[in-house]
């Protein structure tokens, strides 16, 4: 256990400044379900990126790429918010391709 800071050492009011050297605790193992992406249906509106509370939506050149499973807590907001039903929640135990991208098939109901 790391040594805890004294009240004089702690940042004012409990503020946590983002610093590169601070290890970020992975919280992805908290989830029961996880999102997967059907890229053909995605229109890159990025509403999921806006609304994800964990910044776990990965993008590249403003295109939706997939999910950061190290931090996604499986809340399902992305799936709820997606206007084209390109995101679906699946059981966390299910094997999925990297970034959760399921290519070449439409969403299965």
């Amino acid at each position: 256990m790391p040594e805890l800071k004294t009240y004089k050492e702690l940042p004012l009011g409990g503020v946590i400044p983002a610093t590169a050297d601070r290890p970020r605790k992975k919280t992805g193992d908290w989830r029961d379900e996880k999102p997967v992406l059907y890229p053909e249906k995605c229109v890159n509106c990025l509403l999921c990126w806006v609304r994800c509370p964990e910044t776990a939506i990965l993008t590249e050149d403003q295109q939706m790429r997939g999910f950061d499973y190290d931090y996604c807590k499986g809340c399902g907001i992305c799936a709820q918010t997606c206007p084209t039903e390109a995101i679906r929640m699946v059981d966390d135990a299910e094997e999925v391709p990297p970034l959760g991208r399921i290519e070449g098939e439409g969403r299965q109901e």
Partner: protein
Amino acid sequence: MAVAKPGARKLEVLTGHQAVAEAMRQINPDVVAAYPITPQSEIMHYFASYVADGKVDTELVTVESEHSAMSACVGAAAAGARTMTATASQGLALMIEVVYIAAAMRLPIVMAIANRALSGPINIHCDHSDAMLGRDAGVVQLFAENAQETYDFMLMALRVAEHPDVLLPVWVNLDGFTLTHTADVVELIDDAAVKEFIGEYKPRYPLLDVDHPTTQGPFALPEYYFELKRQQVDAISNVPSVLLQVQEEFAALSGRRYEGFFEPYYLDDADYALVVMGSTAGTAKAAVDELRAQGEKVGLLKLWLFRPFPRREVAEALKGKEAVAVLDRALSLGSYGPLYLEISSALYECEERPRLYNYTYGLGGRDTTAEQLTDVLHQIQGEKLSREMHYIGLRE
């Protein structure tokens, strides 16, 4: 109190509402979020007209409750905005949950409190029961006697709140109706001088500084909560020295010299004294004047700063008196009044403790007269006064 240089004086007849709104206009805060409640509403009526007329650049957020008003203030202040609000009574009660959070997040929000009795029974008139909601919240609390002090305290409050050693919400308490709705002569400071006095606000961790992202108001479990509360102890303990420094600068600016945390009125050589906060100090001065004219050695300690409580200075000013009556305008049901408890505690370490009595007065706007206060000053000169709570103007 010294008088400003002739030529620099700008006298206006203002209500307490207008005095607060005028200070707010001159401060020109980035964000104000408020909800109407008697007897505060006119502060925001005046201020809203300044916003509508383009006299300030403020984003005025009209919310659906005081809980939301205070929450909006916390959000704005965390974003780095200079933020203010005003409320009273039930509105303050609804805010109080978020006031604790503002204090813990070290957000310098200046708040005018138009003191009004808490329900129930429901009442709209003045007492200090609403102010006492903040007693343990970690806010700085000032009490004004008149419109001039209200205006001056609003300006000084901002400097105290935003001082890097403090960074806490500050409440300027003004008695509802007695001060808010009555007109008084107020000497104003010129806009440019106020602007220079308050300076530019440089928030410590503005959320809008996206190049330096922060998490604010995080969860603090048993490993951290205690330490973060301890930081607040230091912050509020820094207020007295900061206030003295601000008072010094304010005197240079305005010619009005506030020295310390209370105004002693014929106190030095007094054998018998009253302690009071707010507008009743004016009545108490009339009582003291009358008895002094008859040769009685009586005086008054008018407290400006209730939080942090200036216990050493108060003890120093009251030690050696024969008897002191502490006048509380709020009950702490089941104990003595909140102000009495402070004074009693402050005097504990004194060798020469005065006999100390607690009087409750003015609840729910009950009027208190100079004659009643001269009676109190006479009662405490007797040896056999009960140590139980006394009540001024109550039908018993």
